């Protein structure tokens, strides 16, 4: 998204004057929100620029795959690299040890060639009758890239983060394993969030909360479902009135269905990750680039704060790829052209395309 906003109405929001001189890690979003990066540029793009301050992101884990850890790692690294205070809760005995495995920002010379492709597509070729009288128009996007470098970084999953980023007063870790009840976690979160009150003055600093595997079976408190529900609710309201973003991952299969639904409704931004079967020939035929895909990311809800207009995404399922086993990349699914000679046609299933131009073994 470009940094300039288009005026669609005669009303303009009265932004505080100081907001124009923001730090680059906060971007102005639509409807008076401020966005921070999730650490994954592709996810930022899909969510409309970033995660709005004050929103609660919930990630539904797949118990068969650790992809939620990839999301958490990038989120936490992004915050640490931008010197934002972090509160991390996990069910392991030593959460601080996990900080040593966070990825480091990749150096510019390792940049992928994917960005080059994106630029190539953007240049429009205009076939215009009077072109012979004027020169060609070329859109120039280079100016944007400098801004993006500071808002969000690419992370190299193979290089650990430098120690000085996370050994500081601003990083706090809690182990949820031995907590007798959830109230202790709630208190820590509330006291952490009190550092970032929201008022009309400029945003001094923003904080991030990352809670991993809430309601994992190892935690004593995972049985108390009503208490956990009220914890999430109070966290959501506290985060909403603070300049912070909270991300909670939870194993959705371990929570009873009614509570799972309630938790999902509480989220401002809801995504789920899914594992894919290994060496599955059907899937390899269906998708291009199957070899690199490690899982799927489904976006169920995009944060819409201060607006009633729904967001319609181009694609709600993205594939999670690890390029060169280092860089996390989210891509839209590309279905390989289906072989026309095999399988049954779509016409039998009554889909809107009446004529079956493509056929395959899928049956919708």
């Amino acid at each position, binding site marked *: 998204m470009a940094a300039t906003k288009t005026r669609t109405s005669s009303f303009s929001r009265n932004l505080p004057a100081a907001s124009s001189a923001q730090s680059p890690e906060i971007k102005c979003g639509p409807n008076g929100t401020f966005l921070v990066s999730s650490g994954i540029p592709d996810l930022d793009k899909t969510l409309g620029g970033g995660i709005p301050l004050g929103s609660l992101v919930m990630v539904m884990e797949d*118990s*068969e*795959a*650790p*992809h939620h850890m990839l999301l958490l790692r990038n989120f936490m690294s992004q915050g640490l690299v931008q010197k934002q205070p972090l509160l991390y809760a996990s*069910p*392991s*005995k030593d959460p601080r040890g996990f900080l040593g495995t966070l990825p480091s920002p990749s150096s510019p010379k390792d940049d992928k060639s994917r960005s080059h492709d994106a630029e*190539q597509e953007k240049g429009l*070729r205009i*076939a215009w*009758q*009077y*072109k*012979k*009288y004027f020169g060609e128009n070329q859109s120039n996007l280079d100016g944007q890239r400098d801004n993006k470098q500071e808002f969000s970084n690419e992370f190299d999953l193979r290089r650990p983060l430098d120690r000085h980023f996370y050994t500081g007063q601003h990083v706090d870790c809690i182990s949820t*394993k031995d907590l007798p009840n959830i109230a202790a976690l709630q208190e820590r979160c509330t006291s952490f969030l009190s550092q970032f009150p929201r008022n009309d003055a400029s945003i001094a600093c923003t904080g991030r909360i990352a809670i991993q595997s809430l309601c994992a*079976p*190892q*935690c*004593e408190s*995972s*049985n108390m479902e009503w208490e956990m529900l009220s914890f999430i609710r109070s966290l959501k309201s506290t985060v909403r009135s603070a300049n912070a973003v909270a991300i909670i991952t939870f*194993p959705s*299969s*371990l929570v*009873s269905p009614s509570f799972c639904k309630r938790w999902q409704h509480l989220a401002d931004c809801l995504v789920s990750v*899914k*594992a*894919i*079967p*290994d*060496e*599955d*020939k*059907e*899937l390899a035929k*269906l*998708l*291009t680039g199957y070899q690199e895909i*490690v*899982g799927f990311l489904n976006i169920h809800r995009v944060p819409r704060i201060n607006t009633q207009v729904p967001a319609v995404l181009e*694609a*709600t*399922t993205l594939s*999670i790829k*690890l390029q060169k086993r280092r860089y996390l990349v989210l891509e*839209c*699914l*590309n*279905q*390989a*052209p289906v072989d026309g000679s095999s399988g049954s046609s*779509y016409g039998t299933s009554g*889909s809107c*395309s009446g004529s079956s131009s*493509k056929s395959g073994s*899928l*049956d*919708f």
Partner: protein
Amino acid sequence: MADSICRTIRDGALEGEHAPSLTIKDTTASPYGFDVFTHVLSQTASLILAGKSQSRGLVVVAYSRSPSFYLDYLKRSGVDVASSQKWIHILDCYMDPLGWKHQLAETGILPSNSSADSCLFQDVKDINKLHSLILELGSGLVGQGKVRFSVAIDSVTEMLRHVPLSKVAVLISDLRSHDQISSIFWLLHSDIHDVRVTTSLEYLSSMVASVESLNQSSDGLSGDLGNLSLLEQNFRRGKFHVRFKRRNGRVRVMNEQFHMGESGIKFTSVTVEDGLVSQGLVPKVLFNLELSEKEKLERARVVLPFEHQGNGKPIQIYDGRRSLAPESMGEVSADTSQSNTEECSNGGGEIIYFRDSDDERPDSDEDPDDDLDI
């Protein structure tokens, strides 16, 4: 496949990672989970004895069978149990789990007899004690250093009778993250428990092996008597379905068939079936909206109507009157003709336009396509 399971258990844990853990689950429709468990146990034991596996010792927490049963079984499977003191310890939670016999012996009603081979555990409700005892026995076998040992829990179903799920989950996750544990596997009868129990234990395990019956609807009640012998035969067979969680986050799914024979369980590979798994995962997108490299090149080669103008060459406008005879091809600019023929050969189609009459002037407003310059 049972072999892959045993190999994964043999390979054990890497530094800094959780130990591989296996859940074997079965149902009453196909109650052969215990046979699978003992099969894995004997394989692991023979690998330990032969020195081929990462773990050097085995601690068996026995709830549903007595220790002597296990020793006999191992002897029958060809594992040398003479030196069993050195590499296996069986924690006996079967004989006197709640300590009743001990209490009765204290009051003098029952004679007390203690077995020297195995360790009698009389306090199954105390999970912390169990935890420390397992670690103690294990390090008693392998010493204190970097050497690891494996743990086999006879039946988590039995354990869950005495201890709630959260404590069992704590025990298992602690064992998994312990430095000295190489691998851990357990048996679960999944139809006895809530779904939550099964999913929690599957969450904690890196391999899930389920024993299923051949025909899905067999609960013993359906099927007429004429087919009884067939039912009996089918009862001895079943499907063995394994899901491995791999390190890259993918799930490897394997299927086998097994057959209960006189000498135990035997696994055979099954013919490959079409995978219907993938259809649920991929969303129902009908169109491919991205371009491959080849398609991008093609697109770059398309000559749009007015694109080649303004290059300094004279502008030719096609008005449908003249046919493109071979000699007039030379008049048309060379680069466009090349791209045109390329395009024609690629597209395979042409528009051939015959004017109604030659009287019409080229710049008539009726047909704006006259202006087109391709």
